């Protein structure tokens, strides 16, 4: 059972454009939703995270939109740059009572064309 579904699998965006990646989850007990960025040969690195008590969080060019009723959340990258080309993973966890273990989506390969 895939608990976190991510789309699209890959995405090509022009420099300066907006990149949008979507995730849907099934388990309503999830209470922490991070996005990770991974470059080839490197481990994932936290980009931005949100908890379900807010509907949006913005950090620089990166914004998470969260829709609790629809069980969906998305990452928006404004003014996309070639350096943003990487694989992006959404994830979810149930918090420390359950060890805060992360359930990841399958990933989205983003390519920003200059």
């Amino acid at each position, binding site marked *: 059972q895939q608990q976190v579904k991510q789309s699209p699998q890959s995405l090509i965006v022009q420099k300066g454009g907006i990149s949008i990646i979507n995730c849907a989850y099934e388990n309503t007990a999830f209470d922490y939703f991070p996005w990770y960025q991974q470059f080839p040969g490197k*481990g*994932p690195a936290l980009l931005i995270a949100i908890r379900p008590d807010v509907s949006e969080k913005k950090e620089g060019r990166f914004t998470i939109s969260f829709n609790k009723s629809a069980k969906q959340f998305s990452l928006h990258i404004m003014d996309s740059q070639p350096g943003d080309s990487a694989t992006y993973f959404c994830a979810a966890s149930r918090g420390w009572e359950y*060890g805060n273990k992360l359930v990841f989506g399958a990933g989205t390969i983003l390519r920003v064309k200059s």
Partner: protein
Amino acid sequence: GAGVSQTPSNKVTEKGKYVELRCDPISGHTALYWYRQSLGQGPEFLIYFQGTGAADDSGLPNDRFFAVRPEGSVSTLKIQRTERGDSAVYLCASSRLPGLAGGSTDTQYFGPGTRLTVL
């Protein structure tokens, strides 16, 4: 400060052999996780340590896999009788635990991974 380090970065072994993968977490991080990432997939949880004990090993695929963290710092993931299907990148992550007053979920910091290839 130093991040999470993992050794070796690459490991090639033959089917049936035993391998050990090492993780050095960030100093002071009590929580340590192992994940496995297959090609084109997101990381999948294997095991979680809180201090020296394995608090949750529900993600280990079978009894050929086990992990230890004897002194609450460095951890070793051990795979016996390796199979070709074990080929993947094995990622380690560490984080602080929330404070005594409770607290929010904390960031997991990942190492670069060990790429295991079983021939």
